[in-house]
């Protein structure tokens, strides 16, 4: 302690104007002006290297004729890849599927997460176990969880179908083929995506619910407000910022992720569950048309940009308040 105190008193003794001289004599690693940028530099480099550079590269690839094994970056060909992609019925179907997949899954995630979070604010026996089980899909590797669902919904050995049959809900002769019918396949991939994202949204909403002042709820109870009145006129309006954040994060996850669809259906049946991210992968990586794949993936960009702007504005508003 003595050493620190000694330093402080020495600095105090220096007249105004002498501080700069003293500061320059301090070791570099003890200076905020030097250490601050140094400490933030890895994060900046990380974002630049793993987000910035690939993004700029994909912008260029989309207007080039680069192929998977091109030796360079390809030749500039303008918007030819975009016009080519727009002529493809598969692309148009994937665009529609992307919106259906995203909107339906996010609506379900928000409603179910709100219900779960409300339940978790109450005290009940085994709450910690329930909380652990709810979080499990989020902490498990996504590919592993999805492979589990692939078997759960398998055409031959589906335990889901077996249980439904045992409960006499369906006869053995008409087991639903979860990935074989367009509507069922879309419902399956949405269901698994909801299963995966639900814990994340629940935790966010739970944090929002616990931050609502108790007096507000108590006052509404005194005024005679019932459960639904409280939910719609007090809780949901107060939760709106946090629900927006959960929703926007979910939209980004749904728009950009292809793991669930790739593992479960590979875009089938007959492109019935093909989304832009999976189509970009099939075209660019498996098909070898790197530029075409980049052009498809860039159709997501305007929507993601809008989502990012909204998120930043919400974050800024929260910071101001």
């Amino acid at each position, binding site marked *: *302690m003595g*050493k*620190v105190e000694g330093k402080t008193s020495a600095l105090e003794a220096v007249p105004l104007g002498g501080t700069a001289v003293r500061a320059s004599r301090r*070791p570099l*690693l*003890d200076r905020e002006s030097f*250490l601050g940028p140094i400490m933030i530099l890895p994060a900046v480099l990380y974002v630049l290297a793993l987000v910035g550079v690939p993004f700029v590269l994909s912008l260029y690839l989309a207007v080039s*004729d680069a*192929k*998977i*094994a*091109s*030796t360079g970056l390809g030749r500039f*060909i303008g918007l030819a890849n975009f016009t*080519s992609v727009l*002529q*493809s*019925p*598969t692309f148009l179907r994937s665009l529609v599927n992307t919106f259906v997949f995203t909107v339906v899954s996010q609506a379900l995630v928000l409603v179910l997460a709100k219900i779960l979070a409300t339940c978790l604010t109450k005290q009940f026996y085994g709450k910690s176990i329930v909380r652990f089980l709810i979080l499990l899909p989020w902490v498990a590797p996504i590919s592993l969880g999805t492979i589990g669902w692939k078997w759960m919904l398998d*055409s*031959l050995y589906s335990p889901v179908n077996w249980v439904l049959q045992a409960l006499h809900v369906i006869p053995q*002769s008409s087991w639903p*083929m*979860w*990935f*074989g*019918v*367009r509507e069922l396949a879309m419902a399956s991939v949405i269901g698994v995506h909801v299963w995966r994202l639900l814990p994340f949204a629940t935790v966010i909403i739970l944090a929002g619910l616990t931050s609502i002042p108790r007096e507000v709820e108590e006052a509404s109870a005194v005024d005679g407000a019932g459960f639904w009145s409280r939910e719609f006129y007090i809780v949901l309006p107060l939760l709106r910022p946090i629900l927006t954040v959960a929703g926007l994060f979910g939209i980004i996850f749904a728009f950009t992720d292809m793991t669930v669809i790739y593992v479960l*259906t*590979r*875009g*089938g*049946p*007959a*492109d019935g569950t093909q989304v832009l991210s999976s189509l970009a*992968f*099939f*075209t660019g*990586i*498996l*098909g*070898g*048309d790197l530029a*075409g794949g980049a052009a498809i993936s860039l159709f997501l960009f305007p929507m993601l940009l809008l989502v990012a702007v909204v998120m930043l504005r919400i974050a800024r508003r929260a910071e101001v308040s």
Partner: protein
Amino acid sequence: MGSSQFTRRSFLKGAGVVAAAATGPTAFVRTARAQGKTLKIAQWTHFVPAFDDWFDKKFTKEWGEKNGVHVTVDHISVNDLRARAAAEVGARKGHDLFGFLDPPPAYEDQVHSMNDVVSELEKKFGKAINLVQRATFNPRTKNYFALSDNWVPDPLHYRLDWWGEVGVKPDSWDHVREGARKIKEKMGHPAGFGISQELDTNMMLRGLLWSFGAQEQDESSTKVAINSKATVEAIKLMTAVYKESMTNEVFTWDPSGNNRFFVSGKGSIIQNAISAIRTAEKQNPDLAKKMGLAPPAAGPKTRMGSEHLLHCYVVWKFAENPDLAKKFIIDLVASYNDAFLASEFYNFPSFPKSVTDLRGKLAADKFNAQQYLILADAEKWSAYPGYPGHTTAAIDEVFNTFVIPNMFARVAKGEQSAEDSAKQAEAEMQRIFAKWGK
């Protein structure tokens, strides 16, 4: 030592020492490893596990000892091979030898020419079979971009008991339709021709198209030829088979889907490599005795099926040991008597003379020689993606974006007429050909 002595400076110094200690041994290990030669091979996880056992534990081990090389083999699942290849090319780093399951013409700029290896092998074993030559050779650059050591026939697998009961042999597509319908009506057992976005479907449906006289492209490999009367007829036939004797599960399959379907005892007929019947022999020998093999069904034009897989190696231009890799392939082909037996007849030799008395070996199968003997003539009824042209980069994209399976699926699902679906496939292929033709 008060807590005040733990300053940022001391923390950063400490962290630096820890980081140096952590990375130092790694750098040393890298240097040490670089002193001996290592041949790195990546290839699929074989559907017949006995082949991987032979390859990993016997052949590569003995070859490594003989040549003073450490050989490593990384097995990659069927669905991930292409993505792994793309990653290696993107990073310009990876294995010395990379095994594809279908020809990869799109990678020609990134691989060493195999012309010298082909010449060497031709001197020893004569020419490779025609389908291998057409699928791995680029006539424009006069270059073999890959070297195929083996290919896999794609026969029909059918239940001898049920087909016998309805008195039909699956010899032609009309007979397949008739027999499958009768079995479904009489016994409730569906047929299993995949109409899914996967490898097996891609192969089986191409065979159906050729047998009707349809083709994806012309012989020059420059003109799309999919939209034809023959294609429409082939689509209508498969739609009829689907409606009369299959279920929606044919839209759900991955490459192992039809195997599991048939080996479970549920299905009456599938078209697949012999891994299906081999699996049954091990898991359910009684059921396997009721299974038969047959050449692909004949259509109005001819009898033709696709190769089920065409295994071919490439040597990346960035490979560390390209000469060693090429020597390995030559020695592997020279050992194909053992490889053929280790794969339980799954891997057929691309250079036929590298296996002696193939027919005799098939006839000596201890389980069901009579069934396997039909494979002796497999070359006569097998073709490759892009037939009658070459397998080009455009065909590669058509193949890997599942244009053909989806053309059939749209009609089977009642979303389009056969004519409209063929027209859509033609537009899609012309778009792809235009991109690669530039």
